[in-house]
């Protein structure tokens, strides 16, 4: 539909419009929006008092306080601004395997869904693709839900490839970010747990509200394609591991993958990060809507 992934049905899009991104902190935006900003503004959310000064609007004088203190105070309210949303997609070669699992396509679908939620809420979205091949989306915020089509077309041309040091790549992106906001990192996180924690910890330390979205293939978890005597070649490093895979080995392999995933989840919980795991054998729409809270989305 409109060049978007097939999961983006009209019904799904309607459901997405009911969602909005919820952050655990307040971030200053660049324009009027629906998110409370640390700036004083004209929202209904009381922020503070200050002494009246000449020229202030009489409508914000707290007359009750004047009656008790015989002094004029002006009520201050928080500003409501848009949210700067950063979506980082891991497009390294590992996202392309196993091919049947379509991990990268799922990652793009998640990114577009998140972007649509943000755009539909009037927020600004910047999608950055880490590694990969093809035409990359420009490093600029897009605004307005109609821009989702443009993003979809752009991301459709990206293919996974190459080796990625996620922490280093995110560190480079962090340098170019001027304002904090909501950050989504979509990756398979198939790396040593400390590397993933270092990558996610960068944004956390930069006062960003981070959501880690891990995408794993359904077949990848089951060790499909790894039967009998097989030489497993790492899609990124080219490292080769020779092994004999049987039911017992596949069970141990799945357990090892889930253990890696569990360590990332524990890290996220301990550091106040959102975490969501999507396995591609599950229905994308059901997963996205059901795990909205895990993404940091709210109705």
């Amino acid at each position: 539909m409109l060049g978007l992934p097939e999961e983006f049905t009209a019904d799904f899009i309607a459901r997405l419009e009911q969602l909005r991104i919820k952050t655990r902190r307040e971030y200053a935006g660049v324009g009027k929006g629906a998110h409370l900003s640390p700036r004083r503004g004209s929202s209904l959310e009381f922020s503070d008092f200050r002494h009246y000064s000449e020229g202030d609007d009489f409508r914000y004088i707290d007359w009750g306080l004047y009656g008790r203190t015989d002094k004029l105070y002006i009520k201050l309210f928080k500003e409501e601004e848009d949210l700067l949303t950063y979506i980082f997609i891991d497009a390294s070669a590992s996202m392309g395997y196993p091919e049947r699992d379509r991990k990268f396509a799922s990652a793009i679908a998640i990114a577009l869904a998140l972007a649509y939620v943000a755009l539909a809420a009037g927020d600004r979205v910047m999608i950055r693709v880490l590694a990969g091949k093809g035409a990359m989306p420009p490093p600029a915020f897009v605004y307005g839900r109609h821009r989702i089509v443009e993003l979809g077309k752009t991301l459709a041309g990206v293919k996974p490839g190459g080796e990625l040091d996620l922490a280093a790549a995110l560190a480079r992106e962090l340098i170019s970010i001027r304002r904090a906001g909501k950050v989504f990192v979509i990756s398979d996180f198939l790396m040593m747990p400390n590397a993933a924690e270092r990558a996610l910890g960068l944004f956390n330390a930069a006062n960003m509200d981070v959501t880690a979205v891990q995408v794993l293939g359904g077949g990848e978890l089951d060790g499909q394609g790894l039967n009998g005597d097989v030489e497993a070649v790492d899609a990124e490093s080219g490292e080769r591991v020779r092994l004999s895979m049987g039911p017992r080995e596949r069970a141990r392999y799945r357990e090892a993958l889930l253990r890696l995933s569990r360590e990332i989840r524990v890290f996220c919980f301990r550091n106040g990060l959102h975490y969501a795991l999507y396995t591609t054998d599950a229905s994308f729409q059901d997963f996205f809507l059901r795990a909205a809270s895990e993404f940091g989305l709210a109705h």
Partner: protein
Amino acid sequence: MSLFGWLGLLSPGALWAFAILPALLGAYLARERPRQATVSSVLALRALHVMRGQRFGGRPRLAWTFFLELLALAIAALATAGPYVLSRGAPIAVVLDNSAAMEALIPAGKTRFEAAVGAVDDALRESDGGAVTVYTTAPQPRALGAALDGAAAARAAIAHARPVDAPDDPAALATLLGQLNADGRLGRIIYAGYRPIAAPAPARFRQIAIADPIPNYAIGRFTLSRETFGAAELHASLTVANLSPAPATLKVALEGDGKPLGTEQAQAAAGATATLDFPRLPAANVYRAELAPADGFMLDNAAYATGSSVKPVALLFVSPTPADGASLAGIPGIAVTARTPDQYTPRDVAACDVAIFEYAAPKELPAVNALLVMPPPGDPVFGLSAAAAPHVEIANWPAVNPLTDGVNFRLLNIRSGEYFGVHPWLDPVVSGPGGGLLLSGVRGGHRYIVAGFNPFPYLGRGNLPMSILTLNLLSELAGLGAHAGGYRTGEAWIVPAGVTRIVTPAGDRAPVTAGALYTASAQGVYQLAGASGAPVLRAVNLSDLSVSDLQNAPPIAIAPAPRVAAPGGSAVHQPLAPYLLAAILGLIVFESLFVYRRRRAMA
């Protein structure tokens, strides 16, 4: 196919077997090389990696043992091609005397033959690797197969050679050595035997003379005869010789079918012979004489004779008028079987001791002693030329002859008959003015007598000289009055009709064809067996005092022959297959030991 001049292949086509090796290697790697699968990350697989090595298969085990096996296969493929190394050397001829005299023991405690084999072996070790042809001398000189590739093969062939009980043929041996001397290709001729080569020996000859004089006592002739014609008792006569430098008392013990029959002795001067008689011997199948004192040549210390003549003489009478044989049936100890010429077949002679053809002739030489009485003209077998005479006159007869012994030829009244012309191998015994009347000869080990008159009508009718002559004829043919020593080792006989196999003294069974020649090389008693009936026993003895004389070995004179050409090198194929197979076995054993030790270490 020669590869580098010195290396070649007998079956180069077998090199196609090498094509198997890449296929095997490919199959091995295909089996061993695991399927490649690209995965997103091997992070979770690393933990499983430690399990490798504990499992069979999967991992490309390019271990050295695999290449060891591949090497063994490559060697096997090469071995099937029959690789050989070409070595060039002058051909060698080895003449090894294996005659009976080589069975004599020498002071060193081994036989002359064993000493000769050892000396030839030593001589061949010094050879330069040329082709070797091995000859033996007895019963007749012959080559032991084709030329052998190298000294090692020749030594192996010689190690399997055995001496025979037959004497050598000095003339044939001299001829062989002369031919070898004339062969310019030969680089060396090694002769090992008890006969020395007369000086001057040709330069290329290497003579290994095993001719130390050995004192010897020997039995020469051993004959049996009836005491009287038709009687069951036998008379044995032996000749013993003292072939030593000192006088000796020679003692002979005789036994029949294993039972002692008697002992006789005689004093013999050095180099002299004596005759010992054993009269009135009971009937036995086999008689064995043993000479004492024993000496280093055991072969001539024993002699054998068979008592088959004790049995009634089976006489086959072939005549257009078989009734003429009825008079023969009246002689004691004779069983007559009558046949007409139409009924006669060569197989009939298998069951008889003597065949008589009256007015008839066989279509082939009968394999039995035979008497032909006035054979019809134009007989192709004997080829006799006869001239009929209405009145026969006897002019000449020998004074001493078993056939004419006791016959008063002046009283012999023969009314009619025929004279025979000169015959190639039948000699006249009794003759008249027109030619021979009674011819005698030996052919193929059998005695044949041809009479130009018919004695049978006069038998037992008052014609005593004719009766005596008839009995003399039958005695000669039936062997009852034989003065010959029977069969000798190395001589060929015609296999009698009806005989299909011969059992040698050693017990070996040899299938034979009747009418073919058979050479008995071993001394002892042979059994001639046919499809039916009991086997016929035949004694074969050395009976050659010239062989028994181990003190005097006449030298062999080799005719000098000009060298045709300088001795050239001959290519000798030294096969490498045995070495390659040994290498394969070594590799397998090595790998087995390694695997065994590794498994033990793992256990």
